[in-house]
């Protein structure tokens, strides 16, 4: 996706990322610290409230104990206790006594229970007189039991009570006075509950689906759960037999925390946004200050790449960029010197190669010429009568060899004056077929191991703007080269294909292949690996391809044949 990311963008991203990360980090740290502090405070407030609840619980307990004690010592109860063992004593006369005593002592619950466990009078459920209250009759030191929580059955349900029991001696038995005060939401209103805090007393949790309550029911212990809106702490309230009777729910609103977090977030967004803007401005400034010499250097590099070796970067500072520019200038100077030396060396090498080739090519026809002339001289001296004969034969030979010399010089001359290509849309596949057709006889010549031509031509090849004659000539040279590489026979593969706005032409042989060094020098003029080659065939191919703004490459490995690949622009 996209091109390389510019330095300016990188600077912008770096600065922006730095600012955003720093802001985010600060916001996160502040938010975390605030949250921890809030939660600590939250826990403290909850604990304070729970402590106050227990304190109020104890205070009410003391009060309840005092009032029940007063009821137990009242004349009415003492009179019942005294008369209880009388055979004519009628407890039904006192069925409503508890109500009056409860009113008098401001008690929500009060029951007077006989030694047999039967209720003599009940304030909370007056109609229950005569019914059994069996939990009171077992031998228990009720005074030592203190005040405890108990679920009290009522006519219209049940209620939670802070209960204590006193026994009053009644003859051989005991009269029980059990009562207390209701522990309900009203009880909680006496607690100083801070703002944002809510306290509920959950006594009807049988059908509750709250996971917190379910967990406390499974294992009665103080638990807390935090949600986005609030922290809910559940404190189990147990009865005398450690059964769960109620759950005190303390809800601490986290609205304040949420508001604070929201504020921190908003600030972080604002600072982050400012950071991005700052990053943009800084990147522009940095780009103008830092990247300008780099851009100048880049332009200089491009000029050098374009062949302007005399390009020099301006040196505007003594920093790393200035040093880079100095190094660049030094490098280009050295490169220019090396290039000149290489050109000179290559020229010398080319001249030497040309001289060597010319010497080699010219030496072959010159030797017969020398022998023929020497034969003619020898015949003139030793056998004048045969001189004419020798002369005729020698001149024929001389003319033949001179023809060879002319042909050699002609080929060199042809290479030297390759004409500019005359471009026209050509069907490359058609040219391939025609050229291969020309070589068909040669590939299947008698006395020569057969060579199979394998054409893989893309039928949807687009027309290529090219000079058909030069392309034929280049292809002919490649095929000729391939045939020479397969003296033992083999397969000549030619394929064409369509690329992105290009076409490719590959010519492969199944010959011995070339070494890496041979591959590198293959297109050097006058270089040949063959005994009778001029070394101009592939140089001509490269010249044609180059004139068509195309590319040519060779891929070969010893023993695996050679492939030439030409790519032309459509």
């Amino acid at each position, binding site marked *: 996706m996209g091109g390389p990311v510019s330095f300016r963008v990188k600077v912008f991203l770096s600065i922006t990322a730095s600012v955003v990360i720093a802001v985010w980090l600060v916001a996160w740290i502040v938010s975390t610290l605030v949250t921890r502090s809030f939660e600590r405070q939250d826990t403290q407030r909850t604990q304070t409230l729970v402590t106050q609840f227990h304190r109020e619980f104890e205070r009410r307990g003391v009060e309840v104990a005092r009032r029940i004690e007063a009821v137990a010592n009242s004349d009415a109860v003492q009179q019942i206790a005294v008369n209880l063992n009388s055979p004519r004593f*009628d407890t*039904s*006369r*006192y*069925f*409503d006594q508890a109500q009056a005593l409860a009113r008098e002592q401001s008690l929500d619950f009060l029951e007077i229970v006989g030694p047999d466990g039967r209720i003599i009078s009940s304030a909370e*459920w*007056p*109609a*229950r*007189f*005569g*019914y059994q209250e069996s939990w009171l009759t077992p031998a228990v030191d009720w005074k030592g039991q203190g005040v405890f929580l108990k679920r009290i059955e009522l*006519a219209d349900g049940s209620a939670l009570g802070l209960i204590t029991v006193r026994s009053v001696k009644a003859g051989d038995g005991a009269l029980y006075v059990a009562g207390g005060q209701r522990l309900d939401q009203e009880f909680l209103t006496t607690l100083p509950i801070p703002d944002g805090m809510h306290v509920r007393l959950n006594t009807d949790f049988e059908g509750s689906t709250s996971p917190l309550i379910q967990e406390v029911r499974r294992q009665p212990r103080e638990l807390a759960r935090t949600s986005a809106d609030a922290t809910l702490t559940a404190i189990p309230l147990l009865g005398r037999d450690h059964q769960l009777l109620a759950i005190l729910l303390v809800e601490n609103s986290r609205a304040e925390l949420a508001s604070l977090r929201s504020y921190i977030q908003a600030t972080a967004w604002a600072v982050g946004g400012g950071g991005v803007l700052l990053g943009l401005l800084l990147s522009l400034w940095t780009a103008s200050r830092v990247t300008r010499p780099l851009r100048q250097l880049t332009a200089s590099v491009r000029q050098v790449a374009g062949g302007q070796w005399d390009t020099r970067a301006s040196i505007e500072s003594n920093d790393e960029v200035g040093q880079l520019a100095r190094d660049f200038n030094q490098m280009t100077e050295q490169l220019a010197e090396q290039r000149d030396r290489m050109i000179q060396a290559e020229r010398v090498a080319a001249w030497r190669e040309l001289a060597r080739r010319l010497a080699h090519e010219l030496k072959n026809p010159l030797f017969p010429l020398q022998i023929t002339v020497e034969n003619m001289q020898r015949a003139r001296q030793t056998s004048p009568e045969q001189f004419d004969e020798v002369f005729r034969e020698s001149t024929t030979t001389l003319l033949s060899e001179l023809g060879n010399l002319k042909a050699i010089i002609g080929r060199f001359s042809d290479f030297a004056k390759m004409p500019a290509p005359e471009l026209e849309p050509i069907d490359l596949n058609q040219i391939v077929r025609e050229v291969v057709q020309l070589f068909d006889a040669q590939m299947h010549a008698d006395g020569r191991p057969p060579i199979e031509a394998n054409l893989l031509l893309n039928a949807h090849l687009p027309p290529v703007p090219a000079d058909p004659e030069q392309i034929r000539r280049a292809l002919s040279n490649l095929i000729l080269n391939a045939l020479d590489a397969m003296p033992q026979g083999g397969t000549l593969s030619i394929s064409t294909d369509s690329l992105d706005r290009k076409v490719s032409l590959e010519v492969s042989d199944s010959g011995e292949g070339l070494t890496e060094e041979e591959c590198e020098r293959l297109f050097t003029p006058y270089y040949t690996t063959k005994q009778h080659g001029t070394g101009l065939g592939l140089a001509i191919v490269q010249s044609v391809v180059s004139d068509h703004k195309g590319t040519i490459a060779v891929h070969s490995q010893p023993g695996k044949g050679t492939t030439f690949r030409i790519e032309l622009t459509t």
Partner: protein
Amino acid sequence: MRRTAWAWLALSSLLPASARAATRPHYGGTLAVELSTAFTTLESADFPAGLAQPIAETMLRLNSRGEVEPWLAVAWQADADRRRWRFTLRTKVAFHDGEPLTGPSAAPLLLVALKKTYPDVTITAGGQALVIRSDRAMPDLLSDLANARTAIIRRSESNPSIGTGPFRVTGWEPGRKLMLTAFDDYWGGRPFLDAVAINMASTRANGDVFDVPFSATRRILAERTRLWSSPVEELVALVGTGVQPAALKAIALAIDREPLVNALTQRRGEAAFGLLPEWLSGYAFLFRTAPDAGRARQAAALLRLGTLTLSYAVSDSFARAVAERISLNARDAGINLQPTPNANGNLRLVRWRVESANVAVELQRLAGLLGVSETPALDAANPTALYEAERALLETQRVIPLVYLPVIYGMSPRVHGSDAGFALRLESLWVDP
């Protein structure tokens, strides 16, 4: 030692005198009556239960044994088919405005009262005689004429209630206060009290006379206040209007009436198994049954009852206590019976007063209250038929009698002269000066 002896002697000499003062009635004084209830008319029927209306009188009245005895009418005769009755009015009886009570003055007042029961009744009068006729027999006419509904009373623009009773109205604020003054020309002699002040809807229980709830009787007695109690004259019962008869039967089996009587009425009520109290019908003991929670539980289990509701009057704390106790009894039998002050419960707790000393009339009235429309004509002189009729009413499984209640008034030690009877008669009371 001598001084002590003289003191004892002085005290002992005072004792007979004070005892004599307590037992000898004397005139004068105002009696303060404090009532927790209120009434808004001066009709005899609207007067508080147990308190005889002292303004108007009836032709006849019931004695303490429930028998009819002469009152404004001193004699009567009936023909064989009881369609024609002749009454002779007491002489020297005057209305509070001075008009003498005669046949012609009483006839139109009596006619209005009797027309409600006997639409075709006619009354002819002359002198002190009154002849009451109807096309159909009037066997219960005597008990009707002893009923407060047939009290002879007139109204004028200045006086809302002009009767022949021992007290006349001198102040009347409906629902709040009634001031009565002794009627000097009362035919039975001037009452002892000069005046009676009746305060209604009062929360004070410290008047000379005041109504007492059952729950307060023990406390009242402890305060050395005397209690006056009427015979049981009010039936508390459960009426099942939207409940299947079998369910009502199961509930009836579950109910233990003994705690209701012993505790809730403080032994002043009577367990009710029939519709009429024993003193009225004479056969109520025949309906007596024992509670059987086991059978009730079995019956309820078969019925698979849901939650039933039991309505009671929201202002009636006694009814509420009864309802809650019955709810407990029902719960023991596995029946969920929820007391509610709403009026539309499956069962209703009702309080029905005895309005007539005539069993047949009462049974007919109760049948009407129970919605039993087809009841045969009953002969008050045939107890077997009355018993069968009452049993038939009970077997409709529409009602469960619970308890009969008396009316109880507390009287301060300064009040004297109360006697046993169906109602407390103000004219018989006198107070210490």
